[in-house]
């Protein structure tokens, strides 16, 4: 997914004001860095070089200070990604209950390998480390939403929902586990 020729990769005015609005929360502007990068990423789906340059100006930092921070955190991408970014937890507790099988299933279903994006730009697939859902694995995060207790059937429904509606009602709500509380022994 290359952005098309001449597409504006700068921050919009509303994005800039979202960033500036956070300044009063901190004694210095530098502290708004992560929030600013998040705003930039939400706007284009990834953090553009142009946006990093503008963040540097807004936060009174050098561009390399922005770049060095952006590259440290896994949630920021400097490359375009699919519309739905699927992140499967691969860490131990999830691996014990089928995370590897989940990755294989998604790879087959989407026809891509982990680390790749589907040609239609709809889905990117990656593996990530523990997302604090270990008791509810195997699990994945798609954009902001968690999906837990996954099975093949549930994944099919989630992907179909996303293709059709852009979102799925199978996303997890506020966390409580185990859901059925039985009285202690």
């Amino acid at each position, binding site marked *: 997914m290359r952005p098309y020729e001449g597409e504006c990769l700068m921050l919009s005015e509303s994005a800039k004001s979202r960033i500036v609005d956070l300044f009063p929360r901190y004694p210095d502007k530098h502290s708004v860095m992560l929030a600013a990068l998040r705003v930039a990423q939400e706007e284009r789906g990834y953090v553009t070089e142009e946006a990093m340059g503008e963040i540097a100006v807004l936060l009174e930092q050098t561009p390399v200070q922005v770049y060095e921070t952006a590259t*440290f955190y896994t*949630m920021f991408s400097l490359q375009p990604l699919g519309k739905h970014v699927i992140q499967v937890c691969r860490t131990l507790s999830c691996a014990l209950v089928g995370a*590897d099988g989940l990755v294989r299933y998604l790879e087959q279903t989407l026809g891509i390998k982990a680390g790749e994006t589907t040609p239609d730009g709809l889905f990117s697939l990656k593996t990530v*480390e523990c997302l604090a859902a270990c008791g509810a694995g195997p699990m994945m995060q798609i954009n902001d939403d968690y999906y837990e207790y996954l099975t093949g059937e549930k994944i099919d429904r989630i992907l179909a929902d996303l293709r059709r509606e852009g979102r799925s009602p199978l996303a997890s709500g506020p966390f409580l*586990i185990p859901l059925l509380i039985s009285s202690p022994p």
Partner: protein
Amino acid sequence: MRERERELVNYEKILLKNMETPGYTGDLAAYERAGGYRAIRKVLKEYKPEQVIEIVKKSGLRGRGGAGFPTGTKWGFIPKDPTLTKYLCVNADESEPGTFKDRQLIDRDPHQMLEGTLIAAYAIGAKVVYIYIRGEFALGAKILERAIAEARAKGYIGKDVFGSGIGIEIWVHRGAGAYICGEETALLESIEGKRGLPRAKPPFPAINGLYQKPTVVNNVETVSNLPHIINRGPEWYAAIGTPKSPGMRIFSVGGHVKRPGNYEVPLGISLRELIDEHAGGVRDGHRIKAIIPGGASAAFFTPEHLDVKLDFESIAQAGSMLGSGGVTVMDETTCMVWAAYNLLGFFHHESCGKCTPCREGSAWLYHILERIEHGEGRPEDLAQLERLCGNIAGKTVCAFGDAEVAPILSTLKHFRDEYEAHIREHRCPIGDGVAALAAR
């Protein structure tokens, strides 16, 4: 008889009580109906900050973030000089593999955590609090923002907290994906907008923390305990659990158990009780092979350790640590080399790169484990692993170095024959460690 009484008191839920009540919504009205925001009112009316610190010292509360440091003592290190700016940071980074309790405390009872936060801020004289929540908790951040807005509208948070004339602001600061930012000084760097690289200590955050100001970092579960300690008194709290590890603790139990979940139990119950009685025991037809008792940074236990008591001292004495309270259970189908390899995948990925022994060492450890698991190990590899581990632990700025060697050294200690079999047979004798995905 006294034993029996103690047991009954012990098993009354404290932190999970509201959220496990059917119909509890977690909004401000629901929290107040359940008795919420009484403790902070009492504190503001009746106690000086030093008195709150004394009460928390007397309760014996120890930090739930990992190290178990006594909370009141930590607060006591903050200089009393009223002209100094002080900060409180609540650690909601929860990224220790196997741990998922703070997420539930945030999602289901945010005001309990906020009330505790106000109490802690008042005790140390902090006028600004940052809640550092891991970036992936988008829902949790939204829930917290909403709860803070509710409390601010009522005058519970802001310039004049409960009409006391004291101002306390609470802001949510979202992380962006980096395990190391749970380490308290990396967390401070991250709030300051930088890469999350831990700082060398001393100076400790209590003297020189966020923006070089005296700072306390406390875990979500730690602060959630505070309203209850104020309401029911430090003596009540100190009587729960063991004398040195008082109180209740939420254990996140996962892996090969029948009922994975968060269980709040008094400190000092046995690992066996937690797994068998609360988490429903190991899955049918299987037996336990190994247990990680306190998050991925804690040494592996074997079934021989099932009677170890879950308190800070007993677990340390048995060679592991209570850590984050994340308990991972593995049955006999799990290859121990594969398990260590999986966790080193985590540590290798998450090493922040600041200290050479950790940055380079984690890569070496990972690649050696990879080749052993894939049947390409060499006889000298085990000694090499041990040598590398010895050159990492204790030789880094933060405790990450000690954490990353724990899975290796403990599996080598308890399951050395399994490593040797991999090398001798040029394959993994257990299987590829891959659990299939259920169809439905």
